[in-house]
């Protein structure tokens, strides 16, 4: 099985582990070796081979003694996973790809991580990202960029770029990312994998390093919809450590059980109303090839029995501006905690330096350029005299964007389909000199965060340069079950997920 990467995923690995055709340690070593061999892709900031192998050996022991029963309590037993370096892992360095947290060792696990561990998942290491999740290309990492496994001269997307690369290049079976404005979905699209941003409040944010708390969500990145669904079912749920996590029952994914008979596509999708926002498909900046691929995907849904409905999200044009006020505003407040006192970097100071100078120097040298930009913008829009004109105005625009979606789901459609990103993966350094050009890459993903909705990006084709393209499906709040079902039906009727990136077909 390990010599055929195309059939290697979480579900297939779990079957082999259950049947004792493969061991957890063997599987873990396989991925650790690949991660080392393909280090040049820049997927991981930190690998944790020692602990991962220890946990894998424990998993093997449990499987040996308890057999298949071990998987009832631990549904991810022996599954090697990667965690975005934005999410705290106990005793394992967590940097947010920032110099300011270069040596930070969290004394606790994020709830999502604790749940993966409790389910038997093996944490291989921490993945690369844009510093503090601010970026769409992974080039804002303070340490090194990551590159796209489909074409190493291109970016893997961001900010969860390392997690996307780790999954796409088979350096882990699945990963966690965080998504504030598209940071799971856009890199998933660029790297040809599945990425899900859950409904705001579905997954606890406890232990996720805060960027914009009203927008941030942790979510799964995986090779297929089943794997993403399984990871979601494990990490979701109310958490007393996060007051914004909702008391909503975790989604049930019975339909995923491969032993169950899959419902026939027509029964699940027949009559489904798929909304296609007219503002998105005609948007300036959408690459014609991407548009063509998305239209073909929409046709596929029609073929499967769904109905396309043109919908309008008239306030889409306000979303980007609102986001780039709200997210920096929340970031400037959240990042005020980095003061060089309790943890993180402290600048070298002279005995004459005041406390203020210590703060300012530590922050000045600890934060990278994009983070500084956003802190300054955020500070400005919250400052006296500008709060009403910018911040409050943005929150009002946010309501309009939110209501657009509410109305669409109430009146017109069950699910919304659109591109994840207006382009496929762009070249490294292509957009680094222009922050606004980089921001425009998020026009289809940002409104979803403002509205707190669940959305998934799934592979839906390749452009003429053989780069993967992502289809974004947006669901109504708390409707992940339908979202995943529809994604699964599309996936099983197309073969996009089975293609392997050319640069990663090396074996350890």
């Amino acid at each position: 099985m390990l010599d055929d990467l195309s059939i290697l995923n979480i579900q297939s690995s779990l079957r082999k582990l259950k049947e004792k055709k493969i061991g957890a340690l063997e599987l873990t070593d396989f991925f650790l070796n690949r991660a080392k061999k393909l280090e040049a892709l820049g997927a991981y900031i930190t690998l944790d081979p020692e602990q991962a192998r220890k946990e894998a050996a424990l998993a093997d022991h449990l499987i040996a003694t308890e057999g298949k029963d071990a998987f009832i309590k631990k549904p991810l037993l022996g599954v090697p996973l990667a965690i975005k370096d934005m999410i705290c892992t106990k005793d394992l360095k967590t940097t947010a790809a920032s110099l300011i947290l270069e040596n930070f060792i969290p004394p606790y696990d994020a709830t999502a991580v604790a749940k993966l561990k409790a389910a038997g998942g093996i944490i291989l290491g921490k993945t690369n990202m844009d510093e503090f999740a601010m970026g769409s290309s992974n080039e804002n990492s303070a340490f090194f960029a990551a590159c796209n496994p489909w074409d190493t001269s291109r970016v893997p997307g961001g900010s969860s770029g390392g997690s996307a690369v780790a999954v796409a290049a088979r350096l882990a079976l699945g990963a966690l990312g965080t998504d504030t404005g598209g940071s799971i979905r856009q890199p998933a699209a660029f790297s040809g994998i599945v990425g899900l941003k859950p409904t705001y409040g579905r997954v606890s944010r406890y232990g996720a390093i805060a960027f914009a708390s009203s927008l941030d969500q942790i979510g799964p990145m995986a090779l297929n919809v089943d794997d993403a669904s399984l990871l979601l079912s494990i990490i979701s749920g109310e958490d007393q450590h996060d007051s914004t996590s909702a008391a909503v029952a975790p989604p049930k994914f019975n339909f995923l059980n491969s032993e169950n008979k899959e419902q026939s596509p027509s029964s699940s999708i027949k009559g489904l109303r798929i909304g296609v926002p007219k503002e998105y498909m005609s948007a300036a900046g959408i690459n014609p090839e991407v548009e063509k691929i998305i239209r073909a995907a929409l046709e596929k849904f029609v073929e499967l029995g769904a109905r396309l409905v043109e919908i309008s999200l008239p306030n889409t044009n306000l979303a980007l501006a609102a986001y780039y006020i709200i997210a920096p505003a929340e970031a400037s407040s959240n990042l005020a905690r980095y003061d060089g006192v309790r943890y993180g970097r402290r600048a070298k100071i002279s005995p004459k330096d005041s406390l203020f100078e210590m703060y300012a120097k530590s922050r000045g040298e600890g934060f990278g350029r994009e983070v500084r930009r956003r802190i300054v913008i955020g500070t400005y829009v919250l400052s006296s005299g500008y709060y009403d004109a910018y911040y409050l105005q943005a929150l009002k625009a946010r309501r309009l964007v939110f209501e657009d979606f509410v109305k669409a789901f109430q009146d017109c459609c069950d699910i919304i389909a659109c591109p994840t990103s207006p382009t496929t993966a762009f070249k490294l350094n292509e957009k680094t000199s222009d922050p606004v050009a980089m921001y425009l890459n998020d026009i289809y993903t940002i409104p979803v965060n403002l509205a707190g909705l669940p959305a998934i990006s799934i592979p839906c084709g390749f452009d003429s340069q053989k780069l993967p393209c992502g289809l974004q499906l947006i669901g109504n709040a708390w409707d992940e079950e339908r979202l995943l079902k529809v994604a699964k039906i599309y996936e099983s009727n197309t073969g996009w997920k089975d293609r392997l990136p050319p640069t990663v077909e090396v074996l350890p």
Partner: protein
Amino acid sequence: MANQINIIMSSTENQKKKLAVDQIDLKKTVKLAYLSLTPTESEQLESDIIKILNTIDKLRAIDLATVEPLYQVNGFFNRFREDQKGDHLQIQTVIENAPDALGRFFRVPLVVEKEGDLEQ
């Protein structure tokens, strides 16, 4: 180095807000953000900020007077529970991440300064 950025904005007839010219005092904002920057970094920041403000400024021209702000989609409500005795992080574990510590204390530069020597 210019610390004042003047941004020319298009005015709309139905808006009485002062939209024609707005100003960001960059030096003041950077100070509020507790960031110390080199001259080169300040210059970079200045040109970046102009581009970003140009993008977000279009929101100001729209009349949203009757719209309620949306801070968070799930609404705000208090979530109370009874106090519970529980575990806490060990002081030593927490202190280990500190850049400068003395025993069980974080060490910082002098906070209270001599009279007349205070940071404004």
